[in-house]
């Protein structure tokens, strides 16, 4: 008889993933047996499943455990990232219109949950195989989701994402193969072998791997897909992608940078990555200036914001990870709050409410909604008293103390550029000289809840900074 090498503790580690994936199956079954499709049932089931997974995942916070022979690690870092992914997934589901195409809701929610489970796998992945498995699970679900809106642009987005993302996956996979060739191991921790660094294969592999990751993070110059895909995809899916794919890829990058790069060469291999993070801060914010669609604007904003987050990891300090996580959590709340306002402003499947003109005169039409949008945009721009402000201070200080003052300078320059873009929207909402938009508002009770939660957390995080201490992404 073959003895089972895996213990219950191993299965326990991936229990949250199973819950999420299992609930997705349940939703499809429920959709099948119900006489008349009801979007609300799928949405609420999905949210309940995600909350359950979040609660279960939180149990293992701080308990470091290498499941499946080091293929999947638990501990502070993985758990925090998983929670980020789960929360943003809940918020994205909350932005859906349950009544548009009720017969389709079950499938959409199920796909989102499967994508979530893929990202959660990435959050804990500690060897190259699980990284790829998680990434593909996430991406395959997203290809379908992107194409689901009833607009031609949506099909285009789906196809574009499929082609470009598969190319990036190819880079990633090729890089992984070379890394394996150079070190003879797929475990991230054992890649950190100084002897391997002498092998050119290692450098080529590491470079290709990082290019793949940069694509998933949508760092410049691998960002071109993101505005188009964000614009074309249905709004809840865009909201989902803007945080979840980035959180998953960030987890992989952080673990690679902190655990898989041998001490001496880490600088040379990673500095180019930080340089493109710095370029993203500038290019993302410059790109934002010309946008006339909120989803595109937020896509460019996301490119710059992920640049800030990656910059926090420069120098490989223990504090850097904590601040990157802090800013990621802040970004999640700021960004999804802004998406919630856009969703409320877009009551029709054509989503013309996401065009920037649709915000004209919002300050007079719906003062609380305009105030919320102003607040989230100010937060993204780094105005106090928001988590965006404190997050920037923390990243600036970690950059300065880790010896990357130029990243701090780029962050400041990028933020200065971004002002015009964020305030352009704010101004349109309050300018009395422009003609007010007259579209209706969507009835999305859950979006209002999302918005309120996001606003509260953005403020609370400023004064009670959430920077958990035991979050080193080491794969030991």
């Amino acid at each position: 008889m073959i003895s089972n090498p895996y213990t219950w503790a191993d299965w326990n580690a991936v229990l949250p993933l199973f819950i999420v994936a299992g609930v997705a199956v349940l939703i499809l079954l429920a959709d099948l047996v119900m006489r008349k499709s009801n979007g609300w049932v799928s949405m609420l089931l999905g949210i309940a499943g995600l909350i359950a997974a979040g609660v279960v995942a939180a149990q293992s916070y701080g308990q470091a455990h290498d499941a499946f022979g080091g293929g999947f690690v638990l501990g502070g870092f993985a758990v925090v990232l998983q929670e980020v992914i789960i929360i943003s997934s809940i918020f994205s589901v909350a932005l859906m219109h349950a009544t548009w195409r009720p017969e389709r809701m079950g499938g959409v929610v199920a796909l989102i949950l499967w994508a979530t489970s893929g990202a959660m796998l990435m959050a804990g992945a500690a060897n190259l195989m699980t990284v790829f498995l998680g990434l593909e699970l996430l991406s395959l679900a997203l290809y379908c989701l992107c194409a689901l809106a009833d607009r031609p642009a949506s099909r285009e987005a789906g196809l574009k994402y499929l082609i470009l993302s598969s190319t990036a996956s190819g880079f990633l996979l090729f890089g992984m193969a070379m890394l394996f060739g150079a070190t003879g191991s797929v475990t991230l921790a054992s890649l950190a072998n100084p002897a391997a660094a002498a092998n050119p294969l290692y450098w080529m592999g590491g470079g290709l791997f990082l290019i793949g990751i940069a694509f998933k993070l949508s760092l410049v110059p691998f960002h071109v897909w993101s505005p188009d895909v964000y614009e074309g995809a249905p709004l809840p899916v865009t909201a989902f992608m803007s945080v979840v794919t980035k959180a998953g890829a960030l987890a992989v990058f952080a673990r690679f940078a902190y655990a898989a790069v041998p001490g001496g060469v880490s600088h040379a291999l990673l500095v180019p990555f930080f340089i493109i993070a710095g370029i993203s801060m500038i290019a993302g914010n410059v790109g934002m200036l010309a946008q006339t669609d909120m989803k595109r604007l937020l896509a460019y904003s996301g490119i710059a914001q992920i640049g800030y987050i990656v910059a926090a990891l420069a120098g490989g300090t223990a504090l850097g990870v904590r601040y990157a996580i802090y800013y990621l959590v802040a970004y999640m709340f700021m960004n999804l709050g802004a998406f919630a306002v856009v969703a409320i402003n877009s009551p029709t499947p054509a989503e013309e409410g996401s065009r920037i003109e649709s915000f004209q005169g919002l300050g007079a039409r719906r003062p609380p909604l305009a105030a919320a949008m102003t607040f989230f945009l100010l937060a993204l721009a780094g105005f106090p008293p928001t988590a965006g402000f404190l997050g920037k201070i923390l990243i600036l200080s970690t950059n300065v103390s880790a010896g990357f003052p130029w990243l701090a300078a780029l962050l400041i320059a990028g933020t200065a550029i971004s002002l015009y873009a964020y305030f352009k929207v704010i101004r349109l909402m309050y300018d009395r000289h422009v003609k007010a938009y007259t579209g209706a508002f969507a009835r999305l009770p859950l979006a209002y809840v999302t918005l309120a939660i996001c606003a509260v957390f953005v403020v609370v995080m400023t004064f009670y900074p959430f920077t958990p201490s035991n979050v080193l992404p080491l794969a030991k």
Partner: protein
Amino acid sequence: MSLVLIVLPILAGCALFFVPRTDRFISRAGGCAVAAITFFLPLLAGNDGTFAARWLSRPFTASLHWSWGGLAFWIVLLLALCTFCAVLATNMAQTRTMVALLLMLEGTMMGVFMARDILAFALFWDLMLIPPFFALVGWGGHRDTAWRYLIYNFSGGLLLLLSTAAFGVLYGSTDVIGTTHQLVGQWAPWIFAGFALAFVVKTPVFPLHTWMPPTYSDSPPAMVSVVSSVQSKAGLFGFLIIGLPFFANAMGEWRWAFIVASLVSLLYGAFIALMQTDAKRIVAYSSLSHLGLIVLAIFSQNPTAIQGAYIYIMAHALFSAALFLILGYIEEREDTRSLARLGGLGKANPKLAGAFTIAALAALGLPGLAGFVGEIVILTGVFKNGYFWPALIALIPIVLASAYILRLLQDIINGPERPDIPHRRDLTWVEGLAVAPLLAAVVILGVYPHAVLYAASLVGVAR
């Protein structure tokens, strides 16, 4: 206690949005009450109202720490007074919204002036830029003004942020305002440069002043009176509480750059003020000139000059607030600010003319009024430090000030009456009440500057 001065106006400002849009009475009465509370609370409390709570312990220690003791005391009173007057003087189509913005501006500026932690200072620095932006969006005439205001000032705010982070990393703590410790090392001058750029943009100083004249002339009078009188002092105040106690050496290294810039501001502001025909722009450029004098005083690093700077900060705040409010009254009555179209107001409006004359003479530096005390102490101090030429050059704009202020008086108050603008009435008692405290303070500070002088002697001293 000091938290009340920050939170109360901000919350009151938010609460006003629940008042009907067209209301004029509740918002003004409420706004005045809030401003009065913030005025009398520090005056009667008998302590320095310290509020402190730990905020960050990594990567440097920072606290949410405010107090109205020391240098902040008089500025806090000044801010409350100016807000009171501005709220009282607000009388326009959207009074409620304007008063709400004024209260939010007061609360956020309280957070700047009372801050005992540089990070808390930076937090409210950025916040205080927002209400004037909305005032410019809502009431500004030109599209670009709001942008210019915002981009200039917030870029300065970002540099402040970067310098704050660097200061924290270098020093280990930002909970330091009110103490003194000279920072040394190769980074110190650059950290100071970040702070200084933010401060001179806000002040403003030539050549970073281009946002200021349009902002001042486009904003509604109530908003511009607070912005020009108190918000413009935030940068100068920053030099006093952050520059001198921590970067005296760095200030010495950059000294000549700033002295030259301040002299250029002095001269340039005065000459441009001579040529303007828009009354509000004349006062705006005179502000540029006057504030250049304060920058000169601070960078001379002479204790006497710095005391003078502190007095002149108060004095300029009082008379520029009064001037802008009164120009607002005039514009409301005559529907123009152009000197060519105005004239002969003194005959029909003796009260208006009297108030305007007092404020204008204070701006001119007439002995017995607040402006004079500040100017003479600054010039004495600068001269005593051996800066003969700068002191001499600084005298020229003071002479020019007489010219442009008298021209303002001559063209608006005196001169022939314009028959083509018939609608005139003198100040109502509410309008009078709105400028009376400012003018009274101008006179009191002019004849009895000692109380403020004592506070000014605390600059750079550990408390």
